[in-house]
Every structure is written in C-alpha cells, then in structure tokens.
C-alpha cells in the first residue's frame, strides 16, 4: 500500500492562525463590550451601590477635613452640606449598605491614597458582624472602588465562601446573567457618567413613616454579647492607620435603636472601654436623641430604623458642634477655593431636597 502525505500549504496555516487570533479577540472583546452594559447602575434600585464610586470625583474637587465611614447609619444620618453650611466643615461620607468593618477599613485606606483628613468618624454598629454576610453588599461596597492593591485586599477580606476573586477582576462572569433584567438605564449609562445619587455620600430620604412608639419590644437575647474578635481586629487596624497618619479617630453610634438593628448595652460597654483604653472619643447618640430634638414620629422614613432628611439635619447640627468645639475641626468658609466647591454642593443638596419633597 502506498502512503500519501498531504502537505498543508503555508498559506492555509497562516489563515488558520489568523482565525484563531480573531476568535480569541472576539472572546476577549465581547466581555469587554458587554461588561459596562451588564454591570448594575444602582440609580433607581439599590442606590447605595453607587456610593463608593461617587467619592472619587468629589475628592478630585476638594479635600475633606472629616471622613465618616460605616454602614447605613452613616449615609442616612450625617449631612455634609449642613456641616458646611453651619460650621464650615468640609466632610465626606464613605458609608454603604451593611458596610462591614473591613469594608470601612479598606475604604478608609483607599481614601487616604487621595487625602489626609483631620478626623475619621466611624459608626460602631457594624462591629456586631464578624463574618462576611451577603455577596450583594460586598458588590455594592467593592465594585465601585478604583483598582489598587487596597481594592484587591478588600475583596479578599470580604468575600463569602461562594464568591470568586476572578469575578471582581472580570465582572462579566458575575453579571452576565443580568441580560434578561437590563433596562434603558443600563444602556444609557454604559459608557456615560451617571448622575450622582448622593450629596457628598449622604443618601437623602424625604419620606415620613413614624415609628410605632407604642410597640413593646424586648430585644432578643444573644448567646454571646462579645463583639467578634475579627471585627475588633479591624477596629485596631483602623486606629493604627489613623495614628500613623496623624488622624483623630472618633467613634460614634447613630441615635437610632430599632428592633432589627438593636444596640445592646453590653456592646456599648465594650466600645466605651475600648475608647477609654485607647484614648478615643466615643459618642453613643442613642440617649441624646431627645436632646438633639429628634422626633421619631416625623424624623424617620421607615418606622424608626433610619433617619429621614429632617432627622439627619437635626443630628448633623448637634454633631457638627461637637466636631467644631471638641475636636477643633476648622471652619473653612473664608477660603474661597473650597468655599466655591461647597457652595455648589450645598445648592445641589437643596435642589435635590426640593425635588424629592415635591414628589412625596
């Protein structure tokens, strides 16, 4: 039998190689093109997911003397526009929905790449959590971070067991299944800047849903009231980071205390001791609610879990005085560069408030 060897012409080999290159390019290009469309925009649903990324354009405009970090009790409670208007304090909130202490730590470390504030205010409620809780909250806190080694560390510290680092690096692999949920918003803002949902990190709520003051609620018993060691270790890291940069760390507990988000006396005692041991100021504002004029019949939008804008303004006026008097945060209203930035921000805040009130 005669063997026949058929030689592949050189031209065909080149053509095949070209096809492979084109195929690989398509494989790489499709996710690159689709990812901006598929990524959640967090404009009408879960606006909290936009908060992390909004910081970068704000810090490019001006620096801040106070950075607030923490969970929803930060971004629903403190109003930077009021701090400026009443006390000339330049402040920004780096808060997020169920932002856990490691999220806050890394968002602070990330912010310190751009600016060095005089004080950092940390809301202590999230210290009750010692483990990652839910992927959706990780996404809202982390997807909007600019890429750096800090973001990489933040992801590693935050991931639940089901998550994969690669899906943060290539979000297409996480969000491809959103194709059936896409709305006009996803296409409109795929490659275009989104409108800000917050005012310097403050997420406004103008609704009023009174708290049920007649409800007789006894908080559930806990098996262990010790705040988790993992959480306290991140508080240690936050304290060390602030000390290294010459920043004062101030601890605060927002004045709300709700059946679902209860702040136990046992936790309060631990934070009080921690603050005393390390020479930090700690303000538990729950017992100060009456003094600052909060009325949970009018100052909450969800039955008492969070403050609405009217409650947040009262709290901010109260706490701004503490920042100015007891922590010597400077009044910068006489500095024209920063004042012009804040004039725009304050106007935007009141424009939003008027617009939202007219829709209520």
């Amino acid at each position, binding site marked *: 039998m005669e063997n026949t060897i058929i030689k592949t012409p050189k031209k065909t080999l080149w053509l095949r190689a070209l*096809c492979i290159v084109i195929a690989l390019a398509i494989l790489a290009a499709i996710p690159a093109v689709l990812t901006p469309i598929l990524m959640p925009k967090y404009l009408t649903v*879960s606006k909290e997911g936009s908060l992390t990324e909004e910081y970068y354009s704000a810090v490019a405009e001006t620096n801040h003397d106070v950075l607030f970090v923490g969970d929803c009790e930060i971004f629903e409670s403190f109003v930077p526009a009021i701090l400026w208007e009443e006390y000339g304090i330049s402040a920004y909130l780096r808060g997020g929905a*169920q932002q856990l202490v490691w999220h806050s730590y890394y968002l602070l470390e990330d912010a310190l790449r751009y600016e060095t504030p005089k004080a950092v205010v940390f809301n202590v409620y999230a210290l009750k959590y010692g483990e990652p809780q839910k992927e959706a909250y990780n996404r809202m806190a982390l997807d909007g971070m600019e890429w750096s080694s800090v973001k990489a560390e933040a992801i590693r510290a935050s991931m639940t067991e089901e998550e*994969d680092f690669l899906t943060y690096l290539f979000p297409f692999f996480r969000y*491809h299944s959103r194709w059936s949920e896409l709305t006009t918003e996803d296409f409109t803002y795929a490659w275009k800047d989104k409108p800000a949902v917050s005012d310097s990190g403050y997420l406004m709520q103008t609704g009023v849903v009174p708290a049920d003051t007649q*409800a007789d609620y006894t908080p*559930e018993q806990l*098996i262990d009231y010790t705040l988790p060691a993992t959480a306290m270790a991140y508080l240690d890291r936050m304290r060390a980071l602030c000390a290294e940069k010459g920043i004062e760390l101030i601890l605060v507990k927002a004045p709300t205390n709700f059946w679902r988000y209860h702040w136990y006396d046992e936790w309060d005692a631990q934070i009080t001791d921690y603050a005393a041991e390390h020479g930090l100021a700690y303000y538990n504002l729950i017992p100060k609610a009456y003094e600052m004029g909060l009325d949970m019949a009018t100052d909450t939008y969800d039955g008492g879990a969070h403050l609405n804008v009217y409650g947040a303004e009262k709290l901010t006026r109260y706490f701004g005085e503490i920042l100015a008097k007891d922590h010597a945060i400077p009044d910068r209203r006489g500095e024209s560069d920063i004042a012009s930035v804040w004039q725009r921000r304050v106007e935007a805040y009141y424009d939003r408030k008027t617009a939202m009130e007219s829709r209520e």
Partner: protein
Amino acid sequence: MKTTLRILSLTLALLALTLCFAACGNKGGSDSKLVFVTPNNVTLAVGAPAADAVTTLGDWVSMNSSDSCGGFSGKDYLYTYHGFRMSTTPAKDGQIICKVELTDDSVKTPEGLFIGMSRADAEAAMKSFTAEKVGDNLVYTSGATKLQVVFRDGAVTGIIYVAA
C-alpha cells in the same frame, strides 16, 4: 473556510457556555431534628417556608416589619405570639423562617426545654444532642439549625432557634 467556521462555532459555543454559567447558591431547607412545635401543633423549622406557618398560627400579638438595607426587595418580619416569636426573611422562593425565640414559660420545646427550668434539667432534657459551650451558655446543632440555650443564675433565660 471549514476551519474558519469550526473555530467561530467553537468561539460561540464557549460564549454560550459562559452565559449559561450561573453563580447562585442558596442554603436552606430543614433537615434538622431541632424544631419548635407550637401549642396548636404548628412545626416551625428554621429555613422552612414561612407563609403556611403564619397562616396556620393565626392571630399574632404583634407584627413588625422592616425593609432590607440596600433597597433589596422583600422585608424582614417579626411575629410575636403568646410564648414565642418568629422572625422571617425573604429568600429565593418567598419568606423563610430565620429565627424562633421562646419568650416565657407557657411553651416548651419538644425535648421539654422551657424558660425558667434549671440548668441540670435542661442538660438532661437535651442529653441526646451534643452541646457546645459558649461562655455559660449551650448551643446544640442538628442539620442546618442551632438551638441556643441561655442561662443566668443557674436557670434557662433564653431558648432560640437560629440557622447553623
């Protein structure tokens, strides 16, 4: 040409495979021996659907609800009944029971635990389960449920079913 088509087909197949890949996972259900049975014989298991239980249990003493942080759809509920309260949370297919807490001595667990009983009696009642000590308290685990028993001054002050 055939080769080109083959490569392009492979590319599209890989893409389709990627699109079909789903990253969802949801723990749930109740394979636990640790369940609470109410005086009107409703079995409450952590991780089980809540809708039927709420209907069967009938009138509650009070009910609180709260939106999820982050604007996710669905609310958390806390139903208070005589002797116990039940928390529910939204899951993939509706509300599930996420916590049951006994609040007074008018109800007992199937093993005989009740608020106010002595530590020795509580430990004896739970002898067929392995206990883990958390401070002065005891935690029993079965399947996806933990039963937390809180003691103060030698007596049971808390009995709470939570997800393991």
